[in-house]
Structures are given as C-alpha cells and as structure tokens.
C-alpha cells in the first residue's frame, strides 16, 4: 500500500533531532535506513504522526576504534560496516553477521542503529550486540545515557530507549587474540529472517576456553543469551562431546514460538545443531586467530 499521510522533519544536528523527539515523543518515529519502518507504515502496522529523518546527521555515520572498543555511529549503513576493515579486524562477529542481513539492496540503506533500535528478535544484529555486551549510547535533552545490551532489549520490537531519546552510537568490545567467532543461521532463503540464528564468540587461552558467549536470534521475543551453556564451557577444552553437552544445556530452557516456518520442537532441534556447529566453527576460528 501507499504510505499514510505523515509529517516530516529533517533535523541537521543531534540537538535539533532530540528537541523534535522531546516535542513529539510517542507520536514520532525516527527514520534511519527505513528498511523496517517504511514497510511497517505501508502495512499500517506503524502509524507515526511525524517522521524524524536522521539521514542528515552526518556525525552519526562513523566507525572508530578506540581503547579496546569499536564505536559505530547509529546512521552507519550496514554495507559500510560490512566493508570496514576496522570492523573485520576488531569485531569479527559483527563482520560475520552483516552479510546475512536481508539482501544487498537492503544493506545499501539499512543502518546499524536502525536495526538495533527496531529490535526484531529474529534479526542478526541484536544477537550480536547481546553476545558481545555492546553498549548503547542514547541522547536526550538531559544528556547522554549508556545502556548495556543486557538492559536494551525489553520485548518484541521494544527497547529501553525512551521516546524522547535518540540512539546515537553503539560500542562493541574489540576481540583479542585467541577469540574465534561464528554467526550461523537457518533460513528458507538467503536473506530471509532466520528461523533460528546463533552468535558465538569463544576465547581460547592455552587450549582452554576462557570465555564463551552464545546468543540466539528467532527463539523468543528478544534475543536470548544462554549463561548456563556459557558457564559449562568456561575452563574446558574444546571437544565434540563438550559442544554436544552445551547444545543440550543451551536449548533445554528455550521455549521458541511456532509459526509458518517451524514448530517449537523444530526450532529447538535447529538451535541445538547450530550450537554444535557454531562452537566448532568458533573454535576453529580461534585457533586461526591465535
């Protein structure tokens, strides 16, 4: 369908955008890449009175490495992050996930901040941010607030961003030596939303797992981190038996939704297979990066 009538604002500074958000609050939607918001409007699932288009805020397009972190501006397009050597070197898990987002034409417009603020639980970037304990920087009239990923995702398409706040940047910790990663997903076609997706980061020190991170996409109304499996892996040596046990523990607590693409039982089976494969792939990658 054609888009419904909507007012349009195109601020040129962050302060101006924040003032507009404070003025319109729930009546406004922030327009970044538009690859989720525009379809929602076309389908009448979103009916904002005002669009606040932040494409003119050039200071929000950046990828910068600083003290063990990589800062990515909220308006950074997904293809720019995908092509970034900084992201490839320092945040390999993000680099692994980016090519799986939508299709090439979607990544031409879609943004890092847009995907994370939209917070679709089946999307790739929320699982990556949760696995890596990324930090979300939001700006309101009262100033800046930093929200850890664990507190960011509150429900289906819902985050802890307040209506008068703008997500300005996301900070990802840089991967050290010995950290291997994998992002795996099962989807009907390349580019479709994952039936189940999995972000894995595994750090090996002297052949022992010193840090393990697992976060699922597509199994609940938010991305899901599985601490029980992570704890089980820490301090152990990688093996097929260990990874099978981690898969059992990781999926035992899941209660995934049923839809056209699969039953809860099928999703759990896929999730278990992804844990086994993902851990093996991340371990292989960790040996390479040592």
């Amino acid at each position: 369908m054609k888009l419904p009538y909507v007012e349009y604002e195109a601020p040129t500074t962050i302060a101006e955008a924040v003032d507009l958000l404070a003025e319109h609050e729930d009546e406004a939607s922030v327009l970044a890449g538009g690859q989720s918001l525009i379809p929602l409007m076309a389908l009448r699932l979103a009916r904002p009175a005002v669009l606040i288009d932040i494409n003119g805020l050039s200071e929000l397009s950046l990828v910068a490495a600083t003290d063990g972190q990589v800062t990515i501006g909220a308006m950074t397009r997904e293809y720019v992050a995908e092509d970034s050597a900084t992201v490839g070197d320092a945040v390999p898990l993000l680099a692994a996930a980016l090519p799986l987002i939508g299709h090439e034409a979607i990544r031409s417009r879609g943004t890092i901040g847009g995907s994370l603020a939209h917070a679709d639980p089946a999307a790739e970037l929320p699982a990556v941010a949760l696995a890596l304990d990324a930090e979300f920087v939001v700006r309101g009239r009262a100033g800046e607030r930093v929200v850890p990923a664990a507190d960011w995702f509150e429900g289906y398409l819902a985050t802890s961003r307040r209506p008068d706040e703008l997500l300005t940047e996301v900070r990802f910790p840089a991967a050290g030596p010995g950290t291997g990663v994998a992002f795996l997903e099962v989807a009907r076609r390349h580019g479709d939303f994952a039936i189940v997706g999995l972000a894995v980061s595994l750090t090996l020190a002297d052949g022992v797992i010193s840090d393990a991170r697992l976060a699922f996409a597509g199994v609940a109304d938010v991305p899901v981190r599985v601490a029980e499996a992570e704890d089980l892996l820490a301090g152990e040596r990688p093996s097929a038996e260990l990874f099978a046990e981690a898969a059992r523990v990781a999926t035992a607590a899941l209660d995934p939704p049923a839809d056209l693409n699969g039953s809860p039982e099928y999703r759990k089976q896929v999730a278990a297979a992804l844990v086994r494969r993902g851990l093996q792939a991340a371990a292989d990658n960790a040996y390479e990066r040592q």
Partner: protein
Amino acid sequence: MIEVTVQVNGASRTGSVEARKTLADFLRDDLDLTGTHVGCEHGVCGACTVIVDGRAVRSCLMLAVQAAGSEITTIEGLATDGGLGTLQQAMWDSHSFQCGFCTPGFVMQATAYLSAHPDAGEQDIREALSGNICRCTGYQSIIDGVLLAAQRSREA
C-alpha cells in the same frame, strides 16, 4: 509539498512531493519513468530496485525527499545509443524474460552487483539476486543471462 531535485539517468529533474511519496512513485508518477515497476510496495519483491549513488536500493523503501541531490539510474538509463546494454543483450539472448514484470528490478540489481563483482560466479549471482522475486519462476534463465553478461564483460 516539498521540492525535490534529483539527477536521473544523467538529467536533472525536479518535482514537488508530499513527504510520504516513495522514490518509486516519484519516478513513475512525477517523472514519467514507468520502467521502474512497483510490486509489493513493502520491500520484499525487488521489482522497484534502482541504483542510487552507485548502490542498488529498493525505491519503495526510500522517500522521494530522501533522494534529493542523489544520482539515480533507472532501467531507462541502461540502453546505450538506443541499443541494449551488455547485460540487457545477454539476458535477451538467454531468454531471461517471461511476463517481464520483475525484469527491471532484476536488471538493476544485477547491474549494481556485476559492476562491483565483475568476477562473480553462478553461486554469487544466485545469492545477489535472491532478494528479487519472479512469479513466473523463470529464475534459471535469469541466472544464465547474468552469467553470460559477466562472461562477455570479462572477455570484452
């Protein structure tokens, strides 16, 4: 109404639009460039794909006002001296068309992809075109056409 000026297929064009008008509708209704097809209108089918500042984008997921100042190439911009471009000719030779509705989107997506990946193989092309839907399901001949174009461009 908001005034929008874009460069389309090398020419400067101006129109006056409501904010809610998509780039696809602006091209078709205001600029009479009806080669860009509108299918699903929510970013799933790929029929409306055009090239904006060198990147393939879905013109139904971009507002016309957001395209102000951009350089846009549509299907009408691919012909050279009134003849078919390399990709168009290769797709013609490979019978890559059935009803033709999805064709402009496929051609624009493939144009953007081949210009960035001239050495693309069959699997790469399949993935690159996976966001475009052909309801006649003539995918095989479309892949053949794009592969043939890639080969001809490399040999040229």
